[in-house]
C-alpha cells in the first residue's frame, strides 16, 4: 500500500487515488470553508439571503461602533489569557521535566487530563465556586473574613479571564514540557562546567531553546480563547460580551448568517495571523 505510487502504477490509477483521498477532506473541510467565505459576501433581506456579491458586511463591521470595541477587547482578553497561561505553565512544565521515570509521566498526566474532562461541567463548577453566591464567597462570609460578597469574579470580564485561563492552561503546559524535554542535557552540563550560574544557563540556553514551545502554547490558548462563545456566555454576564458571542448570536436570534460569516472570516484572519506569527517566532531565530 505504501508503494502504491511507485513507478509501475499507471497514471490513471494514481489520479484516481488522489481523487479518492481528497474527496472526504475536500467535501467536508475545504468546501464548507469556501462556502462560508462566499456567504460573507452576501446579504439578507428580511429573512432571505440575497445572492448578489456585496462588501456591506465588512463595511458594517468597520463602521458600526458596536463591533470594533468588542472585537479589540476580545482580542486583548485572549492575549491576556494566553500570557497568563504561558507564565503559569512554564514553571509547571519545568518541574515536570525535572522529574524522573514514572513519576514524570504520572504528573504530566495529572496536569493534562483535565483537558479531556467535561468542558461544560468545568465551567459550571468554576462558576459555582467563584460567583457572587459561590462557595468561596459563602466560606469567606461564614468565616467572617468579608461582610459583603466579593464580586470581583462574578459575571464579568474577570470571570471570563479566570475561567478561560483555567480551562486552557493544560494546552500551554504540554508544548512547553515537550520543548523542555528536547533540550540536550550535555549543553546544560557544559554550561555549568564553564562556570555559568543556573540563572545564566536558564537565560542563555534553556529559555531560547524552549521558546518554540512557549509560542505554540500561547498561540493555541489564544486561538481557543478567542473563538470560545460558551464560556463567556456562562460566566461573563453582560459585561463579558465577547466577539465569539456576537458571532454566535448572528446565527441564533440575530439571524443574519452572511454578517455572522463575515465576522467569522475576520476571526479566521486573526487566527491565521496568530499562527503565522507563532510559526515565524518559533522557527526562525532559535532553531538551526
Amino acid at each position: 500500500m505504501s508503494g502504491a505510487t511507485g513507478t509501475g502504477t499507471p497514471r490513471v490509477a494514481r489520479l484516481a487515488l488522489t481523487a479518492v483521498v481528497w474527496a472526504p477532506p475536500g467535501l467536508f473541510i475545504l468546501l464548507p470553508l469556501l462556502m462560508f467565505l462566499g456567504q460573507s459576501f452576501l446579504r439578507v433581506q428580511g429573512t432571505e439571503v440575497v445572492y448578489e456579491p456585496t462588501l456591506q458586511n465588512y463595511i458594517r463591521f468597520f463602521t458600526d461602533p458596536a463591533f470594533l470595541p468588542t472585537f479589540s477587547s476580545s482580542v486583548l482578553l485572549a492575549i491576556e489569557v494566553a500570557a497568563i497561561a504561558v507564565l503559569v505553565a512554564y514553571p509547571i512544565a519545568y518541574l515536570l521535566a525535572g522529574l524522573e521515570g514514572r513519576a514524570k509521566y504520572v504528573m504530566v498526566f495529572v496536569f493534562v487530563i483535565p483537558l479531556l474532562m467535561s468542558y461544560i461541567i468545568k465551567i459550571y463548577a468554576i462558576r459555582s465556586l467563584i460567583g457572587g453566591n459561590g462557595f468561596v464567597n459563602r466560606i469567606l462570609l461564614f468565616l467572617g473574613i468579608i461582610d459583603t460578597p466579593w464580586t470581583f469574579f462574578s459575571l464579568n470580564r474577570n470571570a471570563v479571564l479566570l475561567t478561560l485561563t483555567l480551562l486552557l492552561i493544560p494546552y500551554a503546559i504540554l508544548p512547553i514540557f515537550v520543548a523542555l524535554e528536547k533540550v540536550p542535557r550535555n549543553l546544560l552540563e557544559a554550561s555549568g562546567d564553564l562556570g555559568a550560574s543556573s540563572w545564566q544557563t536558564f537565560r542563555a540556553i534553556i529559555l531560547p531553546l524552549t521558546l518554540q514551545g512557549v509560542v505554540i502554547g500561547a498561540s493555541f490558548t489564544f486561538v481557543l480563547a478567542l473563538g470560545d462563545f460558551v464560556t463567556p456566555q456562562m460566566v461573563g454576564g453582560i459585561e463579558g460580551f465577547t466577539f465569539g458571542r456576537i458571532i454566535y448570536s448572528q446565527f441564533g436570534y440575530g439571524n443574519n448568517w452572511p454578517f455572522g460569516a463575515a465576522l467569522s472570516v475576520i476571526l479566521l484572519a486573526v487566527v491565521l495571523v496568530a499562527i503565522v506569527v507563532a510559526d515565524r517566532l518559533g522557527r526562525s531565530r532559535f532553531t538551526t
Partner: protein
Amino acid sequence: MMRVAVPIRMALWTVAGAVLVLLYGPLAVAMFFSFFKLRSNQVQWDSFSFEAYGKLPANENVIDALGNTLLVGSAAVAAALVLGTLLAFYYHGGRSRTREWLQLVIFLPFLMPPILTGLALLIFFRQIDFPRSLVTVVIGHTVFVLALVYRNVLARLQTLSRSLVEASLDLGASRWQTFRHVLLPNLATALLAAAILAFALSFDETLITLLVTGTKNTLPLWLWSMMRLGFTQDINALVTLILVATTALCLVAARYLTIPQAR
C-alpha cells in the same frame, strides 16, 4: 533538567499545587455534592447516600442524551479511523506538494477555533439542503478528530522500517496481505490510542455540536441546557460517573501512547 535552588523549587511547587487545586477543585466540589445534600447553604453531613446515582437510570433525558453521545462517538471514531489511516498511508507513500496541501486541510479543523469549523459546516449543510441531525453531528466530530487519528497513524508509520514491507513483498505476500498481516498489527496500538482519545474528544465536544445539531441532544448539550437552571444532585452524580469513566479511558490510552517512547 537543571537543578534549581530549594527556595525557588518550593515556590515553583507552590504554583503547581495551586494550579492543581484550581483544576481539580471545581470537579471535586461537583463530586462531593453528588453524595451530600445542601440545605439553606449548610452541608447536611448526615445526608451521605448513593440515592442520586440510583435515580439516574430512570431519567429519560439522561439516558437519551447518553445514547446519542455514544452513538455519535462510535460512528465518528470509526469513520475517522478508516479515513485517517487511509490518509496517513497516502501521505507516507511519497513526497509531493499535493500531499502537503492535503495534510494542511486535514489539520485545519484542529488549528481553527471550533466555532469556525462548526459554522462552516452549518452553512454547508444549509446550502446543500441537508437537514441537521445526528448525522451532521457525526460528520462534524469526524472532521474534528480526523487530524488526531491521522497524526498518530502517520507517526507510527514513520517509525516502521521500510524493509518490513519490502521483506513481506519479497516473500510473495500481496499488498493486501502485507497491509493486513504486517502493517496493521504494528499499527494496532497507535490506532487504539487514537480511537480512545478521539472518542474522549467526541464525548465532550460542545462547540461544534451546538452549531450542527438538529433537535437531538448529546450529553454536553443537555448539561448546557440544564446549567441555566442550576445543577441538581442527579447531575452531579452523572458528572462524577462521566469523570471517572473518562479518566479510566485516558489511563488506558496513555498506556499505549507511551509504548513507542519506551522502546
